[in-house]
């Protein structure tokens, strides 16, 4: 173990390189750039032996990853915001083709107007592509999640691409210490990559040709089953990684002071991290409130949310908006509770466009909700 004091992007790059992908294909976009620049530095120092393809667009980045993965190689990429949106078609393609590509996405605002700060509308708008989606809250979690992402994506009962999300600047450009295990630990944990399927001249097969409705429906059903399988594998892989690295950041959710909580806050990404301080402050004043930080939104932790709903009133903070409805997490939490719990749930939209969300802001939202003064869904800080 060594301590690496560096930004989220550079720690993500370190994890990606230590997973030893054979192919990385990426296109630069702020604020992902320092991640791919770090990989380029590993290439220059010959510490990364794989192919690094500097493609001409994110669409081609994902297409090249699809080609490399289909040819049987472990594959990694990284993007952000508009880059992720440009990939959209190929995100569906990668998942339907059942290719275990791992990608870091730096959550950034979508334009217009141009804004490079954090919100999660980019990845939230990709929920239906079939990708597994993690949201990180610290640089240590970024490192550990990237490694776990390869293990999960490549598992024979999953074989789906995995997106590891980290919030722009708050994580991507902020230095925090992370414990980096020995290369051997990562090698042993991931094992040799054995592709589930590949383009093979000794077994010539046509992949992705025209398919009738009956077979196609089975393809979708198999993807759904794989996502369900991931629900049981994510906790197992997290615990296995803890055994070898000592680090554990939760399963599908991370629970913080939830045992006796009468109110439970649900949040993702950096707000999820900041929320711990807010919980500490509120606990000091005797409030029975806990935090369930959502690490994984696909597969959605339905059963876990129902348990929380049966225990406490829920407060949800979304750094995204499904325009015309409400925050995506809030919406999905309520869908999970339908017919299972009649608990009260309130949802806040906060921090869009990169607006800072401090622990005091989080406390204000929670207290308003706990006092019963909040509408079912509210926008926090619009007047500010």
């Amino acid at each position, binding site marked *: 173990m060594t301590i690496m004091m560096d930004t989220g992007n550079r720690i993500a790059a370190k994890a990606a390189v230590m997973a030893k992908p*054979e*192919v990385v*294909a990426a296109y630069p976009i702020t604020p992902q750039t320092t991640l791919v620049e770090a990989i380029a530095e590993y290439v220059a120092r010959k510490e990364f032996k*794989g*192919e690094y*393809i*500097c*493609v*001409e*667009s994110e*669409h*081609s*980045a994902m*297409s*090249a*990853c*699809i*080609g*490399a*993965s*289909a*040819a*049987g*190689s472990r*594959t990694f990429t990284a993007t952000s915001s508009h880059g992720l949106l440009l990939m959209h*078609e*190929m995100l569906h*393609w990668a998942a339907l083709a059942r290719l275990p590509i791992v990608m870091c996405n730096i959550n950034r605002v979508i334009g217009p107007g141009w804004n490079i700060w954090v919100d999660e509308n980019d990845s939230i708008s990709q929920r239906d592509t079939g990708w597994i989606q993690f949201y990180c809250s610290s640089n240590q979690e970024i490192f550990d999640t990237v490694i776990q992402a390869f293990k999960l994506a490549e598992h024979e009962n999953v074989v789906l691409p995995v997106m590891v999300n980290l919030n722009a600047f708050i994580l991507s450009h902020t230095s925090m210490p992370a414990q980096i295990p020995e290369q051997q630990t990562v090698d042993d944990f991931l094992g040799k990559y054995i592709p589930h399927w590949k*383009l*093979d*001249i000794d*077994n*010539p*097969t*046509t*992949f*992705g*040709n*025209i*398919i*009738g409705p009956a*077979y196609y429906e089975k393809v979708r059903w198999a993807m759904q089953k794989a996502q369900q399988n991931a629900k049981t594998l994510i906790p197992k892989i997290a615990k296995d990684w803890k055994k070898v690295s000592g680090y554990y950041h939760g399963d599908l959710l991370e629970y913080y002071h939830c045992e006796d909580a009468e109110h439970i806050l649900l949040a993702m990404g950096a707000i999820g991290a900041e929320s711990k301080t807010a919980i500490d402050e509120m606990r000091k004043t005797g409030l029975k409130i806990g935090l369930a930080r959502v690490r994984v939104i696909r597969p959605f932790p339905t059963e876990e949310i129902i348990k929380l709903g049966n225990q406490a009133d829920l407060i949800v903070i979304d750094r995204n908006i499904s325009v015309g409805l409400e925050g995506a997490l809030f919406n999905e939490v309520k869908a999970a509770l339908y017919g299972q719990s009649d608990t009260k749930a309130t949802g806040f939209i906060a921090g869009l466009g990169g607006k800072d969300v401090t622990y005091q802001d989080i406390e204000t939202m929670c207290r308003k909700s706990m006092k019963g003064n909040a509408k079912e869904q509210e926008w926090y800080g619009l007047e500010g």
Partner: protein
Amino acid sequence: MALKDIPVDECLLQGNAACPGCPATIGLRLVLKALGKKTIMVVPACCTAVIESLYPHTSFDIPVMNIAFEAAAAGASGVEAALRQQGRTDITVVAWAGDGGTYDIGIQALSGALERRTNFIYICYNNQIYSNTGIQRSGATPYGAWTTTTVGGKDEFRKEMGEIILAHHIPYAAQTCISYPEDIISKITKAKNIHGPKYIEIFAPCPPGWRFSMDKTVEMGRLAVDSGAWSLWECENDVMTFNGKSKLILEKKIPRKPVEEWIKYQGRFGHLFKPQRDEKRLKEIEDYTDRLWERYRKCYLKI
């Protein structure tokens, strides 16, 4: 290369789902004969996705990866990088795309892959339309041609994709036509043995798309070359050579036939002849073709 020297092995199997008289299958069959079984093909949305047949069947005896319309060259880049990492440099990676996937929606990924010096062969089979979607105009559709989106005939001349490719200064680029099997085999074989990006465009007259009889596919290709509406050439390390009749036309050893001799057999140009001859547009086609060849001579004729 003589016809008798063309390999007998087939990688395009019988019973594929192509239209009768399909030029793409003629091209595919020859290309795969030249490349052999150590080939991986990347196919974007195009007629070949249909020719492959319906899952779980296939008409290909080599591994094929289908990919989205604009993504053939990028997908092939990934396949090539992975094979290189695995030490499988004995396998030829080929992208096989139509003119829509090459001239239009796929040009960015193609240009990127050429600029990155990807070691692969990109083959465009050019039937001058979006035929798989039902005959819509593409950047390769010639002036005056009817398509379902140019109902009165296309108002613009086609782009010169070959010359766009030449601007990338890749080790090998060529134009050929399904009517010349030896030319296809010789150009594909040459490309297979050159390291780096290779581009080959195969002219592919499409009976249902161009509205001619399905037994005239080969003849339509020959007439296109004879009239200078299409040209056969290869460019190796920036040295340009016109081939076959195109060479004779370039060197003015034979005159090109009027383009009219080619288009009069095609229903897509029927409105230029009936109910009466459209002299203005017919003249524009011949004048444009003359100017095209004069420019070819200025650029490529060795003195």
